[in-house]
């Protein structure tokens, strides 16, 4: 069974460094305010490693990755 991943961005912490977009372009994009947001509803298995790396790289520690306990849509 595929593990589901939950990715949250603390908008107040995000400074718009864009490292997450470089590390995981399929997961993160930048909105019109210059802040990051998560694109896919569910993080595909092949992107999960990149999403974790982006969370680790984020200079303002604004990205939180956890296991999604919710029921898959």
């Amino acid at each position: 069974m595929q593990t589901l991943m939950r990715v949250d961005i603390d908008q107040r912490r995000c400074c718009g460094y864009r490292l997450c977009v470089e590390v995981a372009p399929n997961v993160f994009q930048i909105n019109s305010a210059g802040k990051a947001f998560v694109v896919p509803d569910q993080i595909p298995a092949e992107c999960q490693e990149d999403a974790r790396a982006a969370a680790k790289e984020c200079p303002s520690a604004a990205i939180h990755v956890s296991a999604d306990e919710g029921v898959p849509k």
Partner: protein
Amino acid sequence: MAAVHAAETLRLEGFCGRVLLISEENRLPYDRPPLSKALLTGDMTFDGCLLRPASWYDEYGIDLMLGVRVQSLDPHTSRLRLGTGAEIRFDRALIATGARPQTLGGLANSSDTVLALRTADDAEKIRAALVPGTHLAVIGGGFIGAELASSATALGCEVTMFEATAAPMAAVLGERIAHSLVSLYRANGIRVLTGTPVRELNTGPRGVEITSADRRTWRADAVVVSAGAVPNVELASAAGLRVSDGIEVDETAATSAPHIFAAGDVANRPETRFGGRVRIEHWQNAQNQGASAARAMIGQRAPFGEVPWFWTDQFGLNMQVTGFPHRADRVVERGSIEEGRFAAYYLSGRSLVAALGVGRAGEVHLARRLIAEKAEVACEALADTGLRAAVLYAAEA
């Protein structure tokens, strides 16, 4: 920005006393970066720009006084006098009065057609002027001028940019990059008039007549003057605090009166790594210096000397700049701005002092760390292989 972050930090650090936030603007504190971009183009509303929702101030026990001007501050009696005539006693004060747009010598910029951008009210006035087909003149080719020009063209306006020097920001960013920026603006449909200092603006029924120093004239429907900012030091100056280009503070944001602090665009701090003093007009500096000042106010004094960093969005490109470009003795470039992959490394000897990147967020961030460490890089490798490899080479040498 600095004030909200300071207030928040006071609470997060456990300060239980009264926190009063006084602002002359009659609006909840808001984020300024969108004012020249998403707020103008309509991609964001003002509510989306609020730093914190109204309920946050109650939740954090922060008393807001909006639309109230602080008339004077007496460091000896520790009292503020408000525009309303009321007096307030304080134990510690933080001055975060920011900056205001530089006006061109003798040119008033306060009509419906001659505008300047600093506040949300300004942005709303500019937005109202930017109807499709409008001919807008932007006076000043700096980053804010470029963002305004970019937003105005996106709205279907015709834009002419007046730049006093041969290329905008050449004294800071270097000649080559300044010329690349002019090319970028032109490629995006902006008419750029370099070496054209504006001498007069005359408003009339048919818009604004713009006259250059050499007596040439142009006509525009509206003008935005974007010629830099001047720090709002008057309150501090009248209080007898030490003021030069900004309010002089030490590395813990304390002014010459040790119980009064200053942070953000208005503060002029010592630059501990490279010497001299700096006044930084960036969003992140306002946040972090505000937080640092708050800690110092409650006795947790720690030096603040963050390497400057900011981003600008224009013509579909995100550009990030870190460090002190004016300290460089040479610049190494890699890639091209127009292709969206570009880096400029600013060097003083073998040390990196600044970097500018387009589509190179990781490199800019690495550069910022190297600048903080005053690390040496293998300059000869930079143009071909970029910063990561140049750091490795330098380590091996």
